[in-house]
């Protein structure tokens, strides 16, 4: 003990010994107290309210904005089927208020030698660059909004529910009427988009993007169980009727005034018209890229 005291910088006097002992006791007691305080406060915190809903449907407010979820995926991404399942669950939960599009882009999207479809198109690559590449897949952008506390537009799967909920509860700023006329004989379609500002919109530039998606395409996909040749790929972006970052709405959207835009398109023969749909959305295209409203119509209802 004497050696220990010397080692600790104390001389072998009784009061030094008492001082050392009290110091050690003070340390031990403080640790005990700290541990108790920590544990006690851990037990006493008021927990958040959990309400597991599973597949319970959420009521849709007709005046609320719809939510665009752009899911970045790839046939070589093993975790992407789980991402798609989560998107489908959100769509079920919000009863048509969530509109999804799958963008095959990046290194995970390179087709396998036995893939029949290359889902990559120049627009998906451009959108990946435009919305910034995520750190990992699956990843999605919700209404192209940079949410508080987040660094990127790209969000990992665990963040989709909270931000879809946040967006779905915001009032709509724009009303979108989307009419799609499809002629099955010549496979031509006419898209009419009518946009009406419900609030004064001062931010600019304001743009309109129109996408063509094909749902339920069966092809190869890497899954946790291995390569699956008949995986059903959902809501795949096939083409855009506007530029990848939208076409400008010159003059903006004056309050309560309806602005129309029309688009003609011929559907390529390899795409199934009954599985195709048009997605149109009004969005900003500056530092802020928020989607103000989105709408979807099938070619054949």
């Amino acid at each position: 003990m004497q050696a220990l005291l010397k080692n600790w910088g104390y001389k072998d006097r009784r009061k030094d010994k008492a001082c050392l002992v009290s110091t050690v006791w003070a340390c031990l007691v403080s640790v005990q107290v700290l541990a108790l305080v920590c544990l006690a406060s851990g037990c006493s915190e008021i927990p958040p309210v959990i309400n597991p809903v599973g597949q319970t449907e959420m009521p849709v407010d007709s005046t609320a904005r719809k939510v665009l979820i752009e899911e970045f995926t790839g046939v070589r991404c093993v975790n992407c089927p789980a991402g798609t399942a989560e998107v489908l669950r959100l769509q079920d939960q919000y009863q048509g208020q969530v509109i999804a599009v799958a963008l095959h882009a990046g290194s995970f999207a390179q087709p396998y030698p036995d893939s029949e479809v290359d889902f990559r198109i120049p627009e998906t690559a451009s959108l990946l660059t435009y919305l910034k590449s995520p750190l990992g897949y699956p990843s999605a952008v919700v209404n192209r909004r940079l949410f508080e506390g987040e660094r990127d537009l790209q969000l990992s799967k665990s963040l989709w529910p909270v931000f879809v909920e946040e967006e779905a509860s915001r009032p709509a700023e724009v009303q979108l009427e989307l009419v799609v006329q499809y002629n099955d004989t010549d496979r031509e379609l006419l898209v009419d988009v009518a946009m009406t500002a419900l609030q004064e919109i001062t931010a600019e530039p304001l743009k309109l993007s129109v996408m063509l998606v094909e749902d339920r395409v069966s092809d190869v996909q890497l899954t946790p169980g291995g390569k699956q040749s008949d995986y059903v790929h959902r809501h795949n972006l096939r083409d855009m009727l506007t530029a990848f970052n939208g076409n400008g709405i010159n003059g903006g959207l004056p309050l309560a005034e309806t602005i129309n835009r029309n688009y003609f398109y011929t559907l390529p023969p390899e795409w199934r018209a009954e599985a195709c749909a048009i997605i149109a959305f009004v969005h900003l295209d500056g530092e802020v890229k928020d989607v103000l409203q989105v709408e979807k119509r099938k070619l054949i209802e």
Partner: protein
Amino acid sequence: MYPRIVLLIFLGGLSLSAKSQQWENTPQISGNFQANANFFIRDSLIGAANTPQYDRQLYGAEGWLNLNYSNWGFDFGLRLDVFNNSNLLNPTDSYSGEGIGNWFVRKRIGDLELAGGYIYDQIGSGIIFRAFEERPLLIDNALRGFKLKYFFNDNLSVKAFTGRQKQLFDTYDSVIKGINFEAFLEPDPRSGLTLAPGLGIVNRTLDDGSMNALVASINTYTPEQAFVPNYNTYAFTFYNTLTTGGFTWYLETAFKTEDAINDPFAELIIGGDTTTTDRFINQPGSVLYTSLAYASRGLGITLEAKRTENFTFRTRPQVQLNRGLVNFLPPMARVNTYRLLARYNAATQELGEMALQADMSYAPKRNLRFNLNISNIWNLENELLYRELFTEASFKPNKTTSVKAGVQFQQYNQRIYEFKPGADLLEGWTPYLDVLMEIGNRRALRLEAQYKIVGENEANGLKQDYGDWAFVLAEYSVAPDWTFSISDMYNLTPGENSPIDASGRRRGLHYPRLDVSYTRGTNRFDLSYVKQVEGVVCTGGICRLEPAFSGFRFTVNSSF
């Protein structure tokens, strides 16, 4: 505004010191500079393509200028970080930003040491808390806050800290605080027995945003999978280093209270009929780590064991990969430096791992040394994750020549480490040879050869992963200034994941590299032409998948 305040503090410190230097000790300024510039040359065949740098930016750089100033009992630190189209943050994206990446003010007042600003520190071996920087992976998780350290005497101290974790030039919102007692005991100096015990507690309080996001996720679970998460998570550790004679025994045991952690393999039931994986679980965690080292003349032995269960500790549960790490789990496999030996690395598995490692070094003669390293890592279901047997003999036959030769055997669970479903346990044998010859006045030639032979995938008859590799290197150095090296890594027998060309043939590709280094004083310049295969890059036990690289790389390192 914020960087200006920091700069004012720093310049204020300089001015204060300048005024006071006439009656105080001499001021000291020191620092260092590191910068990398990458010039990207697109090569689709090796996968060096489809990133902003390859497609249009063609250039990316990052740099750090670090200044330290001491005077009048104060230490000041300031670091300028610059990222220009850098791929360091996200290898497939581009990031630009610049600002004050680190600053601190430190002062010792009697037995109390105060520090404010960015804090880099750790408790024990870092199992419950480590704030550190690893530039190759752009990990920089300092705490922005305060640290106090009180020295009861030379052998007993306590430190406490509080802050928020750095996120580039911002911080995460969760608050992290901790306390750490450390002591040094030498009961009898004649016995040679010493003890260095320590005790630490760390608490992380989740911010409301992270909790709201977590609750929204949990609300999508079935009632059976749902749980009530805690705002506060506590981690405790006790550790001790016992030294006697030639033995050093380190023991650390850590425990973490219930915490919402992401388990990528946990089943998630969606809609009652769809089952996927990847969800949050609410589990306590634990780590037991011990190492026993013995050293005597010519002989060194280190034995290590570690058991990890649910010890993911992040500043918020939503962050992934190497972001938001509060702690650091020591790796349990050898850190290899030879190119092909380092091809497959065992990233630390935070959710569950049982690992053993033995490292031995024996030198029967002054010019002969043998090294042996064995590591085995399993998950908690007893599935083998990684096994390595490394042998090396170093021989110096005369004053001008030294030879190293050995062989490495690896088994690597690619399915777990790289999420490649269906991948067999990858096996590889890698013999290697390294010869260094001094060939005249201050000139030396070093030759390196490695050959990696991997196993076959029985299902398709192809070699596993990228197949067999050969690597050769020649390095010529003129001390102390110049070093020139040329190397090539060649995919001798392409494997199942090797690139396929337009004709559908698996191509064996060359990955050449040229390096020129110039060192003068404390300045070092490196210019390289690099073609680098994609792979998992690790620093310590933290790894990430790095895409292939093709282009020129220029690096400057300087200190003053």
